[in-house]
């Protein structure tokens, strides 16, 4: 027999028809699953919050700020004047550690940096995209406390990201700043709690300090 079968079309057998609803359910379910995974799984809240990389020096904010009571600005000198809070030079560490714990093994990278002039390579925790131009001074000078974005740094052995730092999160505050405003003198006091209702205080501060956070795109994107 020389029957040419190349033109025959394949027809699904009748028994396979029962699978049709299953395929439909599978497709819909898959789409739903993908949506849920992308929405919640890939959101900054899931991927970024809690990010706590291991630093070359196990510097503890809990010890320095929480127990010893150092001011944020001792190290982060630019925070009131410039866009960047600034990570301190090794020299700043050595102001004390020349005499305090000057034999500690944990501090070896700092000692090395101080003597060789090469930097300590810290790992950035709060990392904004490159197209975002955040300015520390603009927030700190208006009475937005460090704690609002960074959390209770003074209790952290290892610094971790506490807030999603997403655009929606930024805008929440730019739209309703009352929840995060405090008198300027308490900006660096991480454990400060208002004596009155935060919203009432925030509204009053907003009025007196003339705070109208812009929501224009070019405020942060240039």
């Amino acid at each position, binding site marked *: 027999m020389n029957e040419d079968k190349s033109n025959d079309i394949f027809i699904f057998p009748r028994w396979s028809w029962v699978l049709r609803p299953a395929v439909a359910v599978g497709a819909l379910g898959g789409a739903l699953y993908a949506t849920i995974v*992308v929405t919640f799984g890939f959101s900054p809240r899931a991927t970024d919050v809690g990010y706590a990389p291991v630093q070359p020096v196990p510097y503890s904010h809990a010890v320095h700020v929480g127990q010893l009571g150092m001011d944020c600005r001792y190290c982060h000198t630019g925070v009131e004047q410039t866009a960047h809070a600034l990570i*301190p030079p090794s020299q700043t560490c050595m102001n004390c550690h020349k005499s305090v714990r000057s034999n500690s093994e944990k501090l070896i990278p700092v000692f090395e940096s101080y003597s060789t002039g090469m*930097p300590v390579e*810290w790992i950035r925790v709060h990392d904004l995209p*490159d*197209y975002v131009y955040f300015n520390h001074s603009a927030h700190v000078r208006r009475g937005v406390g460090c704690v609002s974005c960074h959390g209770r740094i003074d209790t952290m052995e290892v610094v971790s990201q506490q807030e999603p730092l997403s655009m929606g999160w930024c805008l929440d505050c730019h739209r309703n700043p009352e929840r995060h405003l405090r008198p300027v003198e308490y900006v660096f006091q991480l454990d400060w709690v208002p004596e009155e209702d935060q919203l009432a205080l925030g509204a009053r501060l907003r009025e007196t300090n003339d705070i109208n956070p812009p929501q224009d795109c070019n405020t942060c*994107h240039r």
Partner: protein
Amino acid sequence: MPPMKSEDTTGPVYWRSLEELQRTPEFREAVKREFPNDAWDQLPPATRRQFLKVMGASLAMAGLTACRWPKEEIVPFAHRPEGRTPGVPERFATSMEMDGVALGMVVTSYDGRPIKAEGNELHPDSLGALSAIAQADVLQLYDPDRSRRLLLREGGQQYVKQWSDFEASAVEDFGGDGTGLAVLTERSSSPTRSLVRDRFLDTYPKASWHEYEPISRDNEREGTRLVFGRPLRVHPKLDAVGVVACFDADPLFDHPSSLRLAREFAGARHPESGAGARLYVAESSFSLTGVRADHRVAIASSRVPVVLARVAHLLVAEHHIELPAAAAGYAGEAGQTLSGEETRFAEHLASDLANFQGGGAILVGHQQQPAVHALAAVLNQVLGSTVEYTADPDPDRPTHLQAINDLVAAMRAGSVQTLLILGGNPVYNAPADLRFGELLGEVPVSIHLSLYDDETSQRCTWHLPRAHGLESWGDGRAWDGTWTTRQPLIAPLYDGRSALEVLALAAGMEHTTGYELVRDNLGGRFRVLDFDTVWRRALHNGVVGGFAWETVSPRLSPGRLAVAVDGLRALLDAAPPTSERLELVLTADSRVWDGRFANNGWLQEVPDALTKVTWDNALLISPGTARDLGIDDGEMVVIEAGEASIEAPAFVLPGQARGSVSLALGYGRTAAGQVGNDVGVNAYTLRTTAAPHVISGAKLRGTGRKYALATTQDHFAIDTLGFEERNLRVGTLVREASLDAYLANPEVFHEHEHHPPLISLWKDQAYEGEQWGMAIDLNTCIGCNACVVACQAENNIPVVGREQVLNQREMQWIRIDRYFKTEPGLRSDEIDDAEVVFQPMTCVQCENAPCEQVCPVAATQHTTDGLNAMVYNRCVGTRYCSNNCPFKVRRFNFFNYHKDLADTTMMQFNPEVTVRARGVMEKCTFCTQRIEAVRIGARNDNRPIADGEIVPACAQTCPTQAITFGNLNDPESKVSKLHEEKRSYATLAELNIRPRTQYLGRLKNRADGGGDVGHGAPHGEADGRGKETA
């Protein structure tokens, strides 16, 4: 096709290119394509398989991008220098030197990287402004093609060497009393270099010293020598009210003091404060000064002496000006026949010069012979002009041509054993008849210090990498002698050394670092205990007070004047050029200058002011001459001059003198680098010592082959219907009037606004705080391109290359529109001369912005201070906004232009501005980063933003201060007041887009009171567009 007659017969016709005016088939074909900058039709058709491959790859990538972005490190200083805050830009005063004149500038440094050069307000030649070329010098610093090591070329081999090797061998080469030793350097005004040169010549008394520059003002210097008996430096002043006559001179652009001159010219040109000088220009090719002229006549360069001599004759014969006895020869009837146009020009000018005695100036271009300069100097002297003189700083220096001639003679005689070439590129730019390159090969030891391993380096035995100006210590003198300091902003990237250091090394000096040399030299001039304070102040200010030369009041020197009169007479007898015996004028290029900036992408891509050509030089030819010779626009032509000939594309430029063709020097480099190699044609091959600027008897022959010049002039063109419609409108886009008409009726700029009532579909936005706006004064804009480069440097705008410019994909945010203007009713084949008007065009930040209304993803938005913000990371690249933009000022990233840049080039990026990726639209932001920086600072200090505190990059660098930026909500701000001026108008007001940038109309101040109102098209009731006026 038959030449088209412009339909509009009542007013002048504005057009951008001859193709457009003629509606040639090529042009029609080009505008037919709806999206000319799309290249779909040029791609091979995509197959299904390709499509699946691409889609598959995209999906795979999509999975990768969803993760958290990569780990980033923060590397603080180990020891932070005192007073230094990382992330805060610092500014340092320094300078750059070109052709022996130091130009002061202030360079912004970001974390140790110089990123942008601005002018130094304290420097007399800058006054805060900076030319396009000087600004682009920053890019040169980061050029990856710069030479990185010492090379020794011997016996056909090339060896990489160290400085220590050179130092060792230099001991042998520079031995004895200097017999057989010659030095060839660039011209330099550096006092420290003079000192080191003297030490060098003390050590080697038999050595010879030569200074060569291909472009110089030597003719002017020799002219003053003829008149006054000693060389003087000429200082024109343009701020005095009166009359300025330019004969082939371009004081607004190519003078070492052009930034100051442009400021003076513009300062006097505000009709509210005075009429300003009446500007007469006679020139062979359009210059920027010529564009601004009230009276301009296009004459061949060899006709310039004739017309000037006629002016002198008229002054004596008709206006009874007395010439001193020695110069009486000038008064005689020149006996030359002048064309009607030339005669009218000479008559108007002579009577104006006679009327404005004591308040006028005659300026002559550097390509004119010394005898012509001499005549101008005599007339200036007799008429009591505003021109000032100082003694020449180096009176014994031979002319540059003489210097290189002497050197070549010595090389030919075989008496040069060691040749030290400090900077420059003589193999490329020495006159061709000297055959410098061949002779150089016969010199046993030749050493070239250069930024690049260029044409000259490749013929030398030693190549030494040179430190860039921003990497080295130095000093120099401004045109008026002001002591100018130069300090490095960055350590040498490629182990280079400065010319000063190499010379000091060769001289065997004790201190050979630039810092010590420069500091010690300045220290020697101050007898103070606390020199350190003086030094720090000098570095801070960039200039040292009290060193400008004193002006002199020279007296005519009778003996030499006779020579000058005879010299002029010889020039007058030359036969005028014709189409068969053309005159070829070699000019310095407006962008790459003498060729030294050939590898600078910013400059290569800036469209030339007049031709709008990028990435090429072209032979400029007048329409009449082109018709005579049967040469088409864009046709490759063969130019024969003397024994040499080259092929170059022709560019038909209305306003070019008949019988005179121009070609810019500086192109056709073979060892410039990746950017500059083989761009354009090398005009130096036609240049001889006998005729370095103006070559007569040149012949031109068409080849019939077309060459695509990457010009931006027809970009964003529209079809015939659109052309006609636009022609009705150009008069309202670029508004002009004569000064008399304006003074008689200040409303003259608004007479022709007709549109139906403007009703908006949108609700008006209320502005509480600031509302930014800009005013651009067309009366002072000179079209110099400084703003274009400033914007490019400030805003990380990519260079796209010639191919992409041909595809209409140039990226500069500022476009300087150049319109030719001709009388109505002229057929396109009758056009020869034309007027030119410039209009800088960038995003005008419309209040009712058409772009915002069509963006499907809200990537362009109105902000609370009135800007159209462009949100790059939201843009999906539909380009609807660009299609809907009536000004065509939006630019689209067709590629990831920044991706493949060298690491060093990326160091130039301004970190305050996002680097845009492929598929994203961009446009002028009014320098929003500068606005935010000032706003945050002012808010931190709890004070309002002062007027003038925010200055966008374009306004900052504008030599004429034609651009003003400020808050429109403040009625006292400068910009509000300018918007209130009668000359101020909004472009395309009839579209109800309400632009935030307004233009101030241009005025003409002709002697006969003429000069027309730009808008003359049928309007009002006649075209049934309604009667309401805004």
